[in-house]
């Protein structure tokens, strides 16, 4: 039996050949080493994300999230719901909090859920994978399986917004959260201090307002370079995508020459735990993380 079991909410971007499919592959490898069993919530749906409010309003968004909770309660009773995507976690937690605070909203939600043959009781807790790692296992436990310390690798831990605000990780400050730096150090790499750790990448507005968002991305990447980072690491799929894939566009717009790899914490842990580049899905990076690849291929 696995050490820990969770009802898993992977989210749309994690699906095969979607924009954070490499995140899911590396999470699976990391969890295998840590003996964490993730069982996907059957037939889970989208959380509505941060941009769903325009057309989705209030209740329809909460109903989307409540459907996932109801399915988790029905099929994976007693297990915490764990999300890997920052927006999924945030959207789901927000719904859980709102429904917990308003009997009216809860009744309305259940009236709508009935149309899909479901009901929500309010049992399941909603957690982020990072919370599971830090709170349920702890840094010491996470350091034990390290067989290949990532010595010499300088990393800018980019926390961004949605795993940090408004809920955040318990005990962390909003302005300078340390958990990602600690994870980086746990696997033997160096966490470089830099001043754009919690700067917004533009989020969904990277699509609708590219000019404004790319200035954000420029500031983040520039600061990482200025402080000597070899690569950027993040817990959020949208941060990862925005900060990585638009570097070419940022270069065109601002005349910069950025080309810095952006990976997930789970890819770092996977490599440090002895996983191959394939286990860590490093082939999913648009900008090659060469130093991490070299470490992964080292015997």
């Amino acid at each position: 039996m696995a050490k820990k079991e969770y009802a898993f909410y992977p989210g749309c971007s994690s699906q095969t050949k979607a924009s954070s499919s490499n995140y899911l592959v590396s999470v699976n490898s990391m969890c295998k080493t840590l003996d964490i069993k993730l069982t996907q919530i059957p037939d889970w749906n989208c959380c509505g994300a941060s941009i769903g409010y325009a057309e989705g309003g209030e209740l329809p968004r909460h109903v989307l999230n409540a459907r996932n909770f109801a399915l988790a309660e029905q099929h994976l009773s007693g297990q915490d719901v764990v999300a890997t995507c920052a927006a999924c976690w945030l959207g789901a937690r927000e719904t859980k909090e709102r429904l917990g605070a308003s009997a009216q909203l809860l009744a309305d939600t259940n009236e709508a859920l009935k149309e899909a043959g479901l009901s929500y009781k309010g049992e399941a807790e909603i957690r982020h994978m990072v919370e599971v790692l830090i709170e349920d296992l702890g840094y010491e436990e996470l350091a034990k399986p390290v067989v290949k310390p990532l010595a010499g690798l300088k990393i800018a831990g980019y926390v961004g917004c949605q795993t940090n605000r408004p809920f955040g990780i318990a005990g962390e400050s909003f302005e300078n959260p340390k958990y990602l730096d600690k994870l980086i150090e746990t696997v033997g790499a160096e966490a470089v201090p830099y001043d754009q750790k919690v700067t917004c990448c533009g989020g969904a507005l990277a699509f609708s307002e590219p000019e404004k968002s790319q200035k954000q991305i420029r500031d983040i990447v520039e600061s990482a370079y200025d402080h000597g980072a070899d690569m950027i690491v993040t817990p959020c799929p949208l941060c990862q995508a925005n900060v990585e894939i638009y570097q070419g566009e940022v270069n065109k717009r601002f005349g910069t020459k950025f080309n810095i790899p952006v990976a997930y914490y789970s890819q770092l842990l996977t490599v440090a735990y002895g996983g191959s580049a394939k286990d860590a899905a490093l082939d999913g990076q648009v900008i090659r993380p060469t130093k991490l690849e070299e470490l992964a291929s080292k015997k």
Partner: protein
Amino acid sequence: MSEANTQAVEKYRNNFLKEVEERVEEGEWVKMCMQCGVCSGSCPFGPHWAHPPQEIFMMIRAGKRDEVLTSDSMWMCTSCYNCIVRCPRKLPITHIMHGLANYAHRLGLAPKGQPTREFGKMFWNNLVATGRVNELKLSLSLYFKDGFSQGIKNAMAMKDVGLGMLKAKRLNPFELFSPHGCKDRKGIHAMLKKAREIEDRRKHLTS
């Protein structure tokens, strides 16, 4: 102008604050703002707001209904939540901005062609179709929103990004024909239809 808008104007007359309190998500918090301006100074897109949040709150109290609801300001919100965590009075500012944007959108007052309004609508319709987001279709609908030839231009301008994603196996051309999605789409559509009905009834947004 929608009928729902005419009815709202009739009902609330000069009391826009009351309208916001009753019909906008978390609107009952607006009167708590003490005008310190930390929200406006903390916003990553702050310089791009015609009226930053603090100003919007005062405008609501001053009854500037048209100016607020037709503004593109709220659409500048990136959902970074800086304003929420820094507000000394703990106002849920991000949610109020989303709520105002949604209300203006539903009343037909939000600026036409506002890119985030359009993208938000595309996003919602995209996810509702199968219960999960189809990233390829979402990108294409964004590129081609202003017609075919503009779409080709947009797609060509972004081809390096697209090819990079394709090479990294994070973009699947076949998503166009056999997309991911939920099994119980019927149930999802029925529950969302019901949710919209209830919300419209509660917020008097019958269209």
